[in-house]
């Protein structure tokens, strides 16, 4: 094999232009010519080495650019709705920062967007409305250990947390906007009073006009949580469709995931018997006024004084591992922590360090066993 071919393949590989066949061919060549290893590795390193970033000049250029925009009388910036001025500002600032970090961190999206066509063999006879409804369903799902962001046809944005699924049909955005959620989603819904936005989950139904909110509805969890960041929102519980609960900004509704519960009880105190519902204020982090319920969209895994058993469930989804806590007292142990780039081992080490009840863990393959 010629040297020329080698150089073409190496260049393709380094420039990210190589096909799988190219890569196989390249590997074979490398085995025949181990003496090329050093140069090829160094070229790759040179290619990937990035100079330290100094934005001083670009910042200056941006100032000049803004000045030119002004001179040309071009309106710049987001038009602010007077009633929401403060809130909008805060949100847009934190939101774009967070989105950026998410991407920079090298977002591993494992979302499959599937438009499923159902062909009805009895199309001639079936109810037209139903056939229409089934005609085109979009389904977006995330594997364990990954997250994704979706833009819906009306421009509304949804972040899907690990192990979640969102579906909507082609009727979406005609008379209203309906989606079905399993798992956790953070919604930034574009305001359209004419077309209400509805989220269906197995336990609750959330109805909004245009707001920012988070819904956590994993079927395996004990509760379904709806947290409202901004705007207003209406929740109805599947088992009691007539009752509507209106949430105000910074409120969180927790509903027990129990089918066929006849008992209705409002309990404000978390420490009493497992409540059917509780309404809480969202806690803001005193340091940066961030809200725990939206931290995951920032690629942060946050535990705030939560039982280790619940934490383990969250970690299982986040890191795509299996966690078993062998000790009952440990399962009940409440822990607090925030993790961003840590591996599951690093996160557990951090928790072990902070915990007043010491524990150790052992990983074998995908399974982690925690004991005292």
């Amino acid at each position, binding site marked *: 094999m010629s040297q020329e071919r080698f*150089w073409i393949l190496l*260049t393709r590989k380094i420039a*990210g232009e190589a096909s799988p066949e190219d890569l196989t061919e390249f590997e074979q060549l490398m085995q025949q010519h181990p003496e090329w290893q050093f140069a090829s590795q160094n070229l790759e390193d*040179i290619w990937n080495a990035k100079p330290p970033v100094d934005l001083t000049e670009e*910042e200056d*250029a941006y100032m000049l650019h803004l000045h030119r925009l002004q001179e040309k009388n*071009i309106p710049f910036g987001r038009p602010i709705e007077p009633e929401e001025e403060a809130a909008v500002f805060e949100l847009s600032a934190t939101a*774009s*920062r967070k989105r*950026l970090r998410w991407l920079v961190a090298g977002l591993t999206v494992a979302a499959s967007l599937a438009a499923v066509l159902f062909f009805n063999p009895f199309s001639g006879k079936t109810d037209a409305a139903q056939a229409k409804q089934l005609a085109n369903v979009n389904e977006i799902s995330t594997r364990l250990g990954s997250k994704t962001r979706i833009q819906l046809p009306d421009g509304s944005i949804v972040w899907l947390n690990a192990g979640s699924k969102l579906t909507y049909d082609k009727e979406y955005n005609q008379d209203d906007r309906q989606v079905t959620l399993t798992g956790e989603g953070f919604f930034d819904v574009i305001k359209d009073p004419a077309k209400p936005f509805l989220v269906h989950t197995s336990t609750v139904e959330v109805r909004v006009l245009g707001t920012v909110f988070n819904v956590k509805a994993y079927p395996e969890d004990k509760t379904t949580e709806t947290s409202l960041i901004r705007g207003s929102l209406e929740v109805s519980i599947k088992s009691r469709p007539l009752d509507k609960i209106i949430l105000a900004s910074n409120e969180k509704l927790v509903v027990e995931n129990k089918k066929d519960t006849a008992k209705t009880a409002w309990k404000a105190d978390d420490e009493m018997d497992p409540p059917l519902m509780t309404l809480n204020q969202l806690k803001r982090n005193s340091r940066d006024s961030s809200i725990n319920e939206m931290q995951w969209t920032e690629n942060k895994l946050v535990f705030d004084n939560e039982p280790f058993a619940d934490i383990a469930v969250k970690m299982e989804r986040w890191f795509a591992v299996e966690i078993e806590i062998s000790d009952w007292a440990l399962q009940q142990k409440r822990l607090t922590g925030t993790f961003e780039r840590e591996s599951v081992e690093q996160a557990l080490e951090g928790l072990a360090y902070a915990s007043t009840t010491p524990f150790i863990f052992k990983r074998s393959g995908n399974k982690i066993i925690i004991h005292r």
Partner: protein
Amino acid sequence: MKDVLHIKWLLEQVALQQSEEAYKKLFLLLHKPLCQFAFGILKSNDHAQEVVSDVFIHIWEHKTKLPAIESPLIYLYKAVKNRALNSIAKERRQQALDAGEWLVPMPSVYFDPEKLMMTEELMQKLQQAVEDLPGRCRLIFKLIKDDGLKYKEVAELLQISVKTVEAQMTIAMRRLGKCMQMEVSSFNVRISKK
């Protein structure tokens, strides 16, 4: 290499949220490479900055159309190229040059000496090798290595074939590789003498 997904994301933020912050990030990320590219055509720094600023103004004014852009990098480079060529034609200062004559500032062949374990001598050799590349070859090398364009996009931008882009890239890489190959053998010789 610029992360195309990231750039698309920023454009989307500008389009949907009218995010000033995303707009600024875009500007900071792309201003320099676009200016360098424009400078190659215009041979004037002020002129290049103005063209790039105009392209960014255009982006802001047409922000609703941004999500339709499939390959943002090629879109931006072409916009800069067209504006630069137009401004030359308008001013009738000179006939627009052939792409082969577009000047290119030195690509930033950057070395992290600690990580790469290279001698000063080798670094200078590599630097020299890049400088010695023919004009068009160097332009292609920079657009792909530093600016993150794909072979296909460079071909479209410079109106040449993908094969030509690949050939030029391969030449550039081989020249850099040759520098190191020599270094390897002389290094081995030194060791064996000891």
